[in-house]
């Protein structure tokens, strides 16, 4: 579902809706795979959205894919050791990971000499992070409810 949402969000809405209003579904798919899907299944679930990000973001070749896989392993570790399965904890994890990823890319681009970031951009990025994180909570509730039903 996350992957489908990602595809739709990028290729359907990209012509109409500004980037900061589009929640980062591939990111959520990768993080959720790490947090909630254990074993090789989670790894396989994270591969398509990571490849999707690599193809649809215009970063240097393979940087987005490697970064996304690092994100998967990082969230796997968080899922195993630190995550409490409640809304507040999930919200803080997603916000932190989004902020860390964004800050890292901004830092790398700035160190490389590019300065396309302004205060307005920062505000827009904050909206994107907030929006994506808020979407993550109902998505988590929905998924856990379905999982409970499957188990029953």
């Amino acid at each position: 579902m996350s992957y489908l949402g990602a595809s739709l969000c990028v290729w359907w809405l990209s012509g109409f809706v500004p980037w900061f209003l589009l929640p980062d579904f591939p990111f959520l798919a990768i993080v959720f795979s790490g947090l909630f899907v254990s074993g090789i299944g989670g790894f396989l679930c994270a591969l398509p959205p990571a490849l999707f990000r690599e193809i649809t973001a215009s970063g240097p070749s393979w940087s987005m894919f490697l970064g996304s896989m690092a994100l998967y392993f990082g969230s796997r570790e968080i899922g195993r050791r630190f995550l409490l399965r409640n809304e507040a904890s999930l919200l803080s994890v997603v916000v932190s990971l989004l902020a860390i990823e964004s800050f890292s890319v901004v830092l790398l681009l700035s160190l490389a000499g590019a300065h396309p970031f302004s205060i307005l951009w920062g505000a827009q990025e904050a909206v994107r992070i907030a929006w994506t994180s808020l979407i993550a909570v109902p998505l988590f509730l929905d998924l856990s409810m379905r999982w409970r039903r499957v188990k029953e």
Partner: protein
Amino acid sequence: MGTFFRKWWRLLVAASLLVAAIQVFVRPSPAIERAEPVRATGVALFRPFFLAVDSVREGVSGVWNRYIALVGVTRENERLRREVVALREQLHGTRDAILENRRLKDLLRYSETVGRRTLGARVVGHDVSPWFRAIFLGTGSEAGIEAGMSVVTPYGAVGRIHKTHPGLSEVLLVTDGRFAADVMVERSRVRAVAEGIGGNFCRLKYVSPVHDVVVGDRIVFSGFDGSMPKGVLLGTVVSVDRPKESLFQKVKVQCAVNFQDVEEAMVILSRPSIPFRAGRD
């Protein structure tokens, strides 16, 4: 030691991948190019889906445009409404065809003035990541498109080809932070380096306070660095700031092209005179 690795191997893998990602970001290794077939396979797998979604988007946008004006019409006018819808559909179809025809004629006329071999391509998607500014063209390496080639419209410059795959090309927009090219002020011939700053703007670097640049000046590519064709319009100066403590003026340029509205663009099929290395600019 073994216990440590067993306990923390995921974190170590994550850290290694992060270091590798930073490495390819900062200094792409030639070894990474060997993995290009995998990327090409990924593109080939995703492309039909992208194109399908693109056509659905077009369809939905068409339906939206055609029907939105009819919301709220009462039931007794249903027959008339159906006729209106049918007529509007016809009209819209014709109008769309006329507009497309006009755009393509503009492109063709412009391609004749460019004096180089060109190729028209349809825009099939936008990069929506917050850090990069790019669009995707539905034509790729099979048509002779290569990294570094310029992409323009009759209204001005769009950007440079960043990566190519069969059936898909990625265009780095002039507003991307990694884009830089030699430009000049059309009126006073003052030279500068244009750099993308996001939004729909670029800034001019290294413009001395003694140089004559004013709001409203048109900025064109000089062609000296071989990266973009000479004379192609970049945009118009919207602000000039002369800080006392700085060696250079702060010049902001609004791009001539609105990148959200570009539907077709033209790739100039000549290699840049300065070798272009994808992913390093």
